[in-house]
């Protein structure tokens, strides 16, 4: 379980997050919805301890990671997988090297076990035959699936997705969303999805938090989003894609 308690964050004079509180339970999919540049990706980085808040607490599985040092954070981070917006694949490595990289780096596993896990993720992502290709030779949707496979390589409890369908064509978006749904069904995984596309929320999320001007203005099950009377939520429900 991941908890954000009264988290505030400033970049210089600019206040990005104001007293944000969120809870993401295991084996649930939570969406964080909001316009671009509002601080949604920042929330994911806070959950991983990649950035520190100015105030408040970040709790992962009961451990307060707010002021934890980088070395202690590594163990916590391995409980979560992260799919970055631009995928952040290592462009000089092949697909199988990308998938196996962190296993070789951080776990003392025999090479057979690494190969087995890599093959498992290749199959899960539907990338058989592309093992020795470089990321640049794959389509956007395929690269996203490699990034999801890499995020699952440590068998985490929770996967954090930063704009998982942004920049993808409708068919690839659908594939990615069904892949996310299957994670919970088949692997008992929880997920946090940061998005500005409201259809994604209705397609996969159990609950949704709406971030607007640095504050959470809605946090409940997805179905209740239609009942919200905040003008911003009403506007996004009518327009579907959020603009700045």
């Amino acid at each position, binding site marked *: 379980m991941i908890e954000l308690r009264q988290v505030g964050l400033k970049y210089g004079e600019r206040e990005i997050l104001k007293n944000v509180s969120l809870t993401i339970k295991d084996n649930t999919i939570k969406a964080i919805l909001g316009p671009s540049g509002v601080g949604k990706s920042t929330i994911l*980085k806070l959950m*991983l301890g*990649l950035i520190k808040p100015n105030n408040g607490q970040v709790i992962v599985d009961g451990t307060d990671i707010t002021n934890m040092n*980088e*070395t202690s954070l*590594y*163990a916590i*981070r*391995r409980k*979560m*997988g*992260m799919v*970055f*917006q*631009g995928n*952040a*694949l*290592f*462009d000089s490595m092949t697909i199988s090297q990308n998938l196996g990289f*962190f296993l070789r*780096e*951080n776990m003392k596993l025999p090479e057979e076990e690494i190969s087995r896990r890599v093959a498992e993720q290749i199959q899960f992502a539907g990338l058989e035959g592309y093992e020795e290709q470089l990321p640049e030779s794959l389509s956007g949707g395929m690269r996203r699936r490699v990034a999801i496979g*890499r995020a699952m390589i*440590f068998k985490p409890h929770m996967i954090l997705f930063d704009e998982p369908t942004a920049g993808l064509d409708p068919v690839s978006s659908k594939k990615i969303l069904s892949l996310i749904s299957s994670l919970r069904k088949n692997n008992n995984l929880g997920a946090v999805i940061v998005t500005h596309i409201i259809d994604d929320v209705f397609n996969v999320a159990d609950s949704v938090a709406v971030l607007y001007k640095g504050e959470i203005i809605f946090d409940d099950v997805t179905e209740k989003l239609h009942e919200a009377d905040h003008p911003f939520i009403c506007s996004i429900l009518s327009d579907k894609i959020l603009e700045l």
Partner: protein
Amino acid sequence: MKTLQSPSGAIAFTRALQEKLLLEMKVFFFTMQEFFWFSVRAFVAIPKAKQYWRDVLDQAKICGVDSLPIVLVSAVSIGALLAIEVGNLLEDFGAKTMLGRSTALSVIRELGPLLMGLMLSARFGSRNGAELGAMQISEQIDALRAFGTDPIAKLVTPRLVAALIMFLPLTAFSDFAGLQSAAYMAEHYHRLDPGIFWNAVYPRLVAKDFVVGFLKAPVFAMIITLVSCFNGFSARGGTSGVGRSTIKGIVVSSGLVLIANFYVSKIVLENM
């Protein structure tokens, strides 16, 4: 309307300038602090270099073997040029037989290591800045951290270790090439017997001359690697940000190489 000519305008201008200067100073000190801790972490991670021995070998090839041609070209040209210019000057005083001694001192103590440092700052430093900057922009460095790998141990320390190892032989090659080209020009341009040239080189070189020259190699290795990697890690703002951080890395490391060159020479020559 307030103008600089009116007292209130001048006061406002002075205040704005003061605030800007204070902000710049604050940014400078924060950057220095960050650079200090970045460097400490790179050194602390040196024992982990064993884990990344493949990266160390790759980087040793990049900064050592692959840099050899440019280092040799610069050493040969500066050695030849020194021999011509200094030879002409010594000829006026009838002291052409001292050509070997004067070029050897210049090459071994100063120009060999300095040129190598500047060439590597441009070649190795720019590569580090651009590569790490691109990784920073595309969130690959964040990905390393997110999956539990120390990016400094993985990306910076192998470069540092490789540079510390490779800069010494590069200095030796640079000195050797510089002296050989000077000897060639002494023989073919100034018609000086090679025996006279080399006789003025070897017996007169003392330990201090080599200490000055070879002490610069590890100092330059640290400066070039840490400054360029730090700038790569600090890249922000897309592809133009990568360009800015790369240029900054080269400019700052080249400037620091020149300053360090002076101080290493001064300290060693005054104390040995």
